[in-house]
């Protein structure tokens, strides 16, 4: 059962029912054990026999005697003559009492339903019949009904109380869920001083700290780009103003390093923004993947082929997808040899796919997953080729943010292919 209030409620209700049953049973047992009702006939048989025995007693006297005992014990009595004629009677006999069966018996006997028989020396038979529980049973049934009625009344009264308790839990849960869903300013209302209130307070304190932390992180991200690039801009500007020719190799090297640092700053900031799960930055627009591929391929002189000529439309953030494609092309241009990059794209199985293939040395099988880890560098890759190993990690992050995936495959005839699969628009 998933609802806590139902569980608590059923526990309360169940224990009420058990209580009612036990109470009923104990009352019933008490009634059974009560002396007035529990009069084993044989205990008194001697006394009764003594009074009835003298043959001198007139039938009236005997009848009075039996009536007296009937009143005292609640048993019904019949006195039979040896020939089976009823001499005296007291009390009401059960409706289906069969007197002829008693006539057949001799000596003391006991029937399971509470009929006791005695045969006196002179042949008379005294039969005592325990009263049926008709009346008391219906009375205890009424008692049961009252108990169950009380239980139901308590159950109905308990419902709002239990509901009230768990509603506070639910509100707490809603607050936590809202916070978890990204609304960092969400807090829960605190009422009372019980455990739930304390839990709420603890949550609010934690939320305050998380919010402060994330705010600091956000501020850092927002300013880091500007702050890190200011010195780079000054460097670039100062380099331009160095005396001497602009074609100097030293100057070109410095310019290239500034460019690389700039790329690194951008990639690190983008990676940490993506990791922060800042979904606000992720736009959801219709993007023509083939169009993006074409634009980026042009910059790398790579050939784009869309064999089936279909429209390849995906949902996502065009800037991030452009970065994904550019990183794959950059990777192929850097490590993929000089044979040229081939890019294909198409649709299949509800997915858009793009493949960036090169004729480079290829990636050994045990490294094909590792190369997507941040800052991973292949064993034989030369440091001088540049790149810091964030490019492919970003590719994977962006693909996953778009509900897609990326993998590295071996290419027939040498080299490797990077395949990206993204859900198509409307899927």
């Amino acid at each position, binding site marked *: 059962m998933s609802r806590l209030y139902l569980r608590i409620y059923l526990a309360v209700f169940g224990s009420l029912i058990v209580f009612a049953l036990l109470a009923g049973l104990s009352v019933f047992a008490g009634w059974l054990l009560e002396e007035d009702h529990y009069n084993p006939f044989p205990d008194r048989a001697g006394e009764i026999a003594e009074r009835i025995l003298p043959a001198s007693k007139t039938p009236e006297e005997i009848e009075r005697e039996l009536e007296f005992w009937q009143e005292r014990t609640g048993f019904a009595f019949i006195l039979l003559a040896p020939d089976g004629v009823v001499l005296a009677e007291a009390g009401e006999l059960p409706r289906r009492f069969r007197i002829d069966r008693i006539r057949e018996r001799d000596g003391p006997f006991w029937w399971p339903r509470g009929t006791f028989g005695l045969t006196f020396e002179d042949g008379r038979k005294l039969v005592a019949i325990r009263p049926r529980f008709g009346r008391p049973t219906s009375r205890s049934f009424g008692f049961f009904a009252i108990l169950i009625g009380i239980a139901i009344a308590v159950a109905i009264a308990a419902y709002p109380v239990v509901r009230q308790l768990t509603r506070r839990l639910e509100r707490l849960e809603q607050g936590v869920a809202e916070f978890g869903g990204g609304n960092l300013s969400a807090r829960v209302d605190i009422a009372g001083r019980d455990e739930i209130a304390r839990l709420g307070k603890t949550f609010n304190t934690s939320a305050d700290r998380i919010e402060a932390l994330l705010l600091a992180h956000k501020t850092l991200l927002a300013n880091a780009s500007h702050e890190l690039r200011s010195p780079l*801009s000054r460097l670039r500007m100062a380099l331009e103003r160095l005396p001497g020719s602009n074609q100097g190799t030293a100057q070109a090297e410095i310019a290239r390093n500034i460019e690389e640092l700039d790329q690194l700053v951008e990639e690190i900031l983008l990676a940490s923004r993506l990791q922060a799960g800042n979904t606000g930055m992720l736009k959801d627009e219709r993007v023509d993947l083939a*169009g993006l591929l074409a634009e980026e391929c*042009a910059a790398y002189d790579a050939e784009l082929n869309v064999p089936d*000529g279909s429209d390849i439309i995906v949902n996502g953030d065009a800037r991030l997808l452009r970065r994904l494609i550019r990183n794959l092309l950059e990777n192929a241009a850097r490590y993929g040899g000089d044979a040229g990059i081939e890019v294909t794209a198409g649709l299949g199985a509800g997915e858009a796919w793009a493949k960036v293939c090169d004729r480079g040395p290829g990636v050994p099988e045990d490294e094909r997953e590792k190369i997507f880890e941040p800052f991973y560098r292949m064993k034989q890759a030369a440091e001088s080729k540049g790149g810091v190993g964030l490019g492919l990690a970003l590719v994977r992050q962006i693909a996953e943010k778009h509900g897609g995936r990326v993998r590295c495959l071996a290419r027939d005839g040498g080299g490797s292919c990077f395949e990206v699969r993204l859900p198509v628009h409307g899927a």
Partner: protein
Amino acid sequence: MPRILLVDDDDRLASMVADYLRGNQFDVCHAETGGQAKVELQKQTFDLILLDLMLPDTDGITLFRELQSQPSVRTIPVIMLTARGDPTDKVIGLEVGAEDYVAKPFEPRELLARIRVVLRRGERAAPMSDILRFGRLEIDRGSRVVWVDGEEKQLTSYQFDLMLAMAERAGRVLSRETLAGLAREDHHSYDPALDRSVDVHIARIRSAIEDNPKHPRRILTVRGAGYVFAKAQH
């Protein structure tokens, strides 16, 4: 000598930029804050504003909007200086109506080229909405003219329509049939003789607007699918 107002709180960078621009025959005035920039704008007139997005007292976008509300200042073209990847980057810069943007760290020569293009543009008074701009390429839908680096390029009416149809759908791959259909639809006096082959016209357009028609960067071929007009151009 064109007068440029440089608004940037990084005075070490600003002094180098100012020196560089002065060395290239520009008159540069430097303002470190938004407030100072407004004071300078009241004192004198400028031909162009270089506006950094991050200022100590305000941000570039807010300042830009304030300047746009003053009739005397509104006509001055603005180039935004941004840091690439900033939350407030080029997209916002161009959305609010800046003429262009340059991402830091910029190549000084690139900045110079952008300034020159924007200043050359300055004379035209076409409403912004009628001009499609892709980096250094501009298409004026009203007067049906295309410029690259502020220089007018010659296209036939049909070719202009074909290019415009593509540019209006920049970033989308369009098949030859779609393109032929679109250009015909937009073309008021359709002449079947002109509709020989989309490829021929594309080649003509490329030779007019591409920096290097052998390595096109504006109209790109997607083998098997058609052509796409690049959204991000330089």
